[in-house]
């Protein structure tokens, strides 16, 4: 039996019959319209062989439609998809040789686990003897050995998803698509499976294209993330890139938490820019497309803010400093979350990491805030 709440050490398994190379996937100016609704709007994306890429976005952002077009279940309105340079938009799904895992598992309820996993092999006329061997092998990989004779309804959600995963990789696809595969599972199990999927990706070496609306999941698992919004790719980059250097207010808002400050740039260019926010002047990382006098929006993550008196040594980089008064303090587990207000009425959220001996501030306490200029990003500029 597999205890799903424990990530078990990986037993090395025979994976020689698995493809160790992923395919590149290139989306070129993909459009998908449903009647008058534009679901996917001019999406171009070059996915490297063996990469783990996540399409992240809220519902209706076009991420699932994009995935469905790669799988072949939706026909694009315009554009082309290449796998290893070969155009495939006119190839029917059953000849694309792409693995796919669905949110609701989509196991065949009338077949046993073994029959489910054997299904793609049977379609490819793999000899019977070899089928049994490969089914057993792939069940080992998903840590469910000996489950051949069970029916899907006899398995828990997490087990069903592992079987769906086994079925999607048993025929050596070079690309694996996953559509919110962990969406229906509870938090603890989801976290374990995230690590397992990540491990599987390293083991198989094939290209994973993962769709989720859960930013945490995307940050944990991906090599790169494409944040989608209203059918377009809003920003593409590594998890750290997106978190620390969001290009737009949408990305800063969707990934993690941010304080947003409306202000006016007092200088332009890609060096440090002073920005007037209300009556304060805050220094921010500049952008080439910013000119003096422009209306801009600044973003600062709550955990990048800190109380000046807690800093043990001299800062390594330039800081922004503001005097403020604590308005609320809430314990949220690993952090304490404060709402503070500056002398000129600017409200900011701050997260204080909790260590032994740390000081808890109470509403009404006068504090000095500081944060690195480097952590102050201009995420939005007036476009007119």
């Amino acid at each position, binding site marked *: 039996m597999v205890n799903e709440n424990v990530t078990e050490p990986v037993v090395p398994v025979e994976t020689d019959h698995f493809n160790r190379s992923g395919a590149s996937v290139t989306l070129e100016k993909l459009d998908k319209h449903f009647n008058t609704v534009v679901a996917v709007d001019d999406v171009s994306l070059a996915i490297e062989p063996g990469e783990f890429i996540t399409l992240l976005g809220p519902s209706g952002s076009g991420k699932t439609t994009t995935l469905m077009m790669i799988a072949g279940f939706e026909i694009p309105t315009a554009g082309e998809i290449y796998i290893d340079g070969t155009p495939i938009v006119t190839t029917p799904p059953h000849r694309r040789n792409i693995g796919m895992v669905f949110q609701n598992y*989509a196991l065949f309820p009338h077949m046993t686990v073994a029959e489910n996993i054997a299904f*793609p092999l049977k379609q490819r006329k793999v000899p019977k003897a070899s089928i049994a061997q490969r089914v057993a092998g792939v069940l080992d990989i998903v840590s469910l050995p000996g489950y051949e004779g069970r029916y899907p309804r006899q398995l828990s959600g997490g087990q069903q998803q592992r079987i769906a995963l086994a079925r999607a990789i048993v025929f050596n696809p070079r690309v694996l698509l996953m559509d919110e595969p962990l969406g229906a599972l509870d938090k603890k199990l989801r976290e374990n499976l995230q690590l397992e999927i990540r491990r599987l990706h390293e083991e198989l070496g094939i290209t994973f294209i993962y769709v989720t609306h859960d930013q945490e999941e995307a940050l944990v698992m991906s090599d790169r993330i494409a944040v989608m919004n209203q059918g377009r790719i809003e920003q593409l980059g590594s998890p750290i890139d997106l978190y620390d250097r969001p290009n737009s207010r949408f990305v800063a808002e969707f990934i993690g938490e941010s304080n947003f400050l409306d202000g006016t740039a007092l200088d332009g260019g890609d060096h440090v820019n002073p920005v007037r926010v209300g009556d304060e002047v805050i220094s921010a990382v500049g952008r080439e497309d910013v000119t003096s006098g422009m209306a801009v929006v600044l973003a600062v993550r709550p955990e990048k803010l800190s109380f000046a008196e807690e800093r043990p040594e001299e800062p390594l980089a330039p800081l922004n400093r503001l005097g403020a008064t604590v308005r609320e303090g809430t314990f949220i587990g690993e952090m304490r979350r404060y709402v503070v207000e500056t002398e000129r009425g600017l409200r900011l959220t701050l997260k204080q990491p909790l260590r032994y001996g740390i000081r808890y501030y109470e509403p009404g306490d006068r504090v000095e805030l500081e944060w690195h200029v480097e952590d102050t990003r201009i995420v939005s500029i007036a476009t007119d």
Partner: protein
Amino acid sequence: MAESTASVPVTDQLERAGRNRATLARLRRQVQLRYIAVVIPLVLYLLFFYAYPVIAMLFRSVSEPTWSLTNYSHLLRTNVYVHVMWITVWISIVVTVCTLILGYPVAYLISSVTTTKSNLLIVLVLVPFWTSILVRTYAWMVLLGRQGIINELLQSMGIIDQPLRLLNTRFAVYVAMVHILLPFMILPLYSVMRGIDRSVLLAAEGLGARPRAVFTQVMLPLSLPGVAAGCLLVFILSLGFYITPALVGGPKDLMISVLIAQQVDLFNWAFASALAAVLLVGALLIFVIFNRILGVEKIFGEVRS
């Protein structure tokens, strides 16, 4: 709260819990009785107007003219009657197969489209279903008659010189019965297909199954309970069909219900009862067999995949 219970002696608490248990049990029984009470009118109705006549009929088939099985042996020894039973079964089989072939794609279509469209299509299936069988049978007589619309159309187009004999043929029986019974096939098929997760079909396709394999290995097995329910319903209804074969069939298309009516007209009540008993037992037998093989009863209840 915690203090007050702690001050009461333990034995008193136990005693109170015991009394409480008895009160709750009485309450549960009352609730159960209420459910039974509301179905009593229907049970009485069925006993008087259904169970009693059926039993009286079965009784008559063995008690008249004398206590014996003469009526049954007469039935089985007379070739004409055995032949009528065979015709009945054969027509029912053909009608069932035709409704399945015609109804399956329709049910699939209705279960695949959006709710707005499927509601409209369901209404289209149900409208003829709500029209009287007699009216629909007459409609077929108008269409298929010697001077009927079909013959006149074919003649005016110059395809035929003489009107075809369409009415009072086996063909007319098939056409009219299939038309009338189609909803009984489509509705159970639709109810099962609606419960089939579409992503399972997509998954099959994505895993490399050609369209034919998706159908034979996934869609068909998953819709089998609906196929069984629809076939059972149509087959049993066909066995007892009366008006349609009587009006559009020829003399060679005598079905068992028509025969029963003829015998009643001749005041052969006992023999008619024996025929009806055979029909009843036959229908029950088929239901039991279907149920054994496919577990049909669960279709009329909840469908789970």
